């Protein structure tokens, strides 16, 4: 899978989780850009993304990403 495709699929996960059709993610999107994306919902997102892409993140990785792009890179290394 390429990064663009991963972004598209991740976008859908966000839309579903936050119940907000207007969310458009880019590689540069950070938690500050999405309303309701706080440390708690972050965990919910992580679990949903793990499930969708059938990957498991380490606890360190979960804390390390600065933006969506870095998270996608992490998925693609798995």
């Amino acid at each position, binding site marked *: 899978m390429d990064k663009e495709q991963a972004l598209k699929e991740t976008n859908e996960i966000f839309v579903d989780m936050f119940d907000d059709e207007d969310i458009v993610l880019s590689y540069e999107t950070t938690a500050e850009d999405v309303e309701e994306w706080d*440390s708690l919902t972050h965990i919910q997102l992580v679990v*949903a993304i793990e499930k969708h892409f059938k990957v498991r993140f380490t606890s360190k990785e979960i804390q390390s990403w600065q933006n969506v792009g870095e998270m996608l890179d992490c998925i693609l290394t798995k």
Partner: protein
Amino acid sequence: MKNFTQLKKNLKKDFDAFKKIRVAVLGDTATQFLVQAIRGYGYEESMDLEIFEAEFNQIERQILDPSSELYEFKPEVVILFQSSHKLLGKYNKKKDGHGTFAADQLEHLNNLLDNLGNQLNAKVICYNFPEIDDAVYGSYANQIGSSFLYQLRSLNIKLMELAEDRNNLFICDMSSIQNRIGKERLFQASIYVNTEMVLSIDALPEVAAKTVSIIGAFQGKMNKCLIIDLDNTMWGGVIGDDGIENIQIGGLGIGKAFTEFQYWFRKLKNRGIILAICSKNTESVALEPFEKHPDMVIRKDDIAVFVANWENKADNIRYIQEILNIGFDSMVFLDDNPFERNIVRENIPGITVPELPEDPAEYLEYLYGLNLFETISYSGADEKRTKQYQVEAQRNQVKKQYVNEEEFLKSLEMISVVEPFNKFNTPRVAQLSQRSNQFNLRTVRYTEADVERMSQSDDFHTFTFTLEDKFGDNGLICVIILKKENEESLFIDTWFMSCRVLKRGMENFVLNTLVEYAREKGFKYLQGEYIPTAKNEMVRDHYRNLGFKEQDGRWILETASYQNNTTFVQANMKIYG
């Protein structure tokens, strides 16, 4: 079960119509998600749970300080969530006294409950501890009184004993959730390390459901009655077709699954759940196993209301409800047939209809997981309940009130494909010919070779009927073979139908089709015959009911004067020249 994201979406919905219940949650780990899941699950159960969530790790402060937010909030229910991980942490820090760790913990809890009880008249729900095996001693931990595993299990037992003594204490069995879904699903280490939450996202709905069902029971939301279908639910096979010696129960076939199922029913009955039967069968046939089969666990005496007939099940359940006089929302209906489940679900609001797995071997484990019979009290008197209802059932011989049958049939949107025998349906026709016993007018059996022969012959006119409705396709369910007697007359050599589709007006549709066909081919008469067997009593008056006239042991219908019988089945005719 809804997942956590779905439960969270419930939070935005309108709770106004629901009863408000004030609930406090105190935990020694992060409980934000659990609180959301509990409130969200409350919506599913029509409860507006107003939740006060104490700050993280404040169990003691909230309970011991009389001026705390907890007491200001005045909850009716207090949920105490002490986690196994924190328990392990406390155990790890101890330098000695590991052998009395559980006893010390219990005393601490008891002390907290005393304090709480002095300030509040609230019910307390306390989670027990899912096991963590720290693997320090291996299995030998079972023999070391001071091992963590030993102490944790001991604490769970002590909690049960404490709850037996304290009227206001109820244990929510988190440990049994872990047993069922597995530790890997209950707990996700990466989340715990990042957030101090010990429950994984997947486990939240499970824990919320179990918790809310106890709160529901406080409000009187409890299932009191279990209504059970017979064929392929109470036993394997179809009693009307297979006969008492061939139904699967006990040693025969997959009978073990049904035997265990029946033991479960009996335990429920002994604890006060009312058992009722709702089955599409002839009553005398349906009763036989209960009276005569040596391997049946459930006997007639165990059943409060026994309904076996050919009416629709929604009406029969209404009848059962009239006798028992309890709410539909306290009834559970078990049936292997998805069609019947849907009918009941659509027509009886509030009733619980579990979507049973296809394989009867899985019924029990599946139902265990649904936790259908939560309660908050038990008394020996519950056992006598069945007897009272049996008496009531005898008294109550009122004529049953049916829903408007026509409306019901119309709503099904039934479609039947009518086809002559062909190479695709030949195996099914032969199979049904071997198996149909009840709705079978002459019970002449045909093999595949016979079927093929008749489909080639000019003397035979063959028909197969399927029945599909908005709930699904029943497949090929009726077979007719007409034999040319002479230039004027067609003899109905074969008419059999699957009992699954009784009471749907299928007979009328079939006859309309036959008459139309006969007229087109220039035949003046249809002739039918009923040959009685031990099993086909139900169709004795079949031809009379359809308007045939008796003459010399046969039933005659004049095609010219025939008026179509009412039917709500739509035809989809194929390949009739």
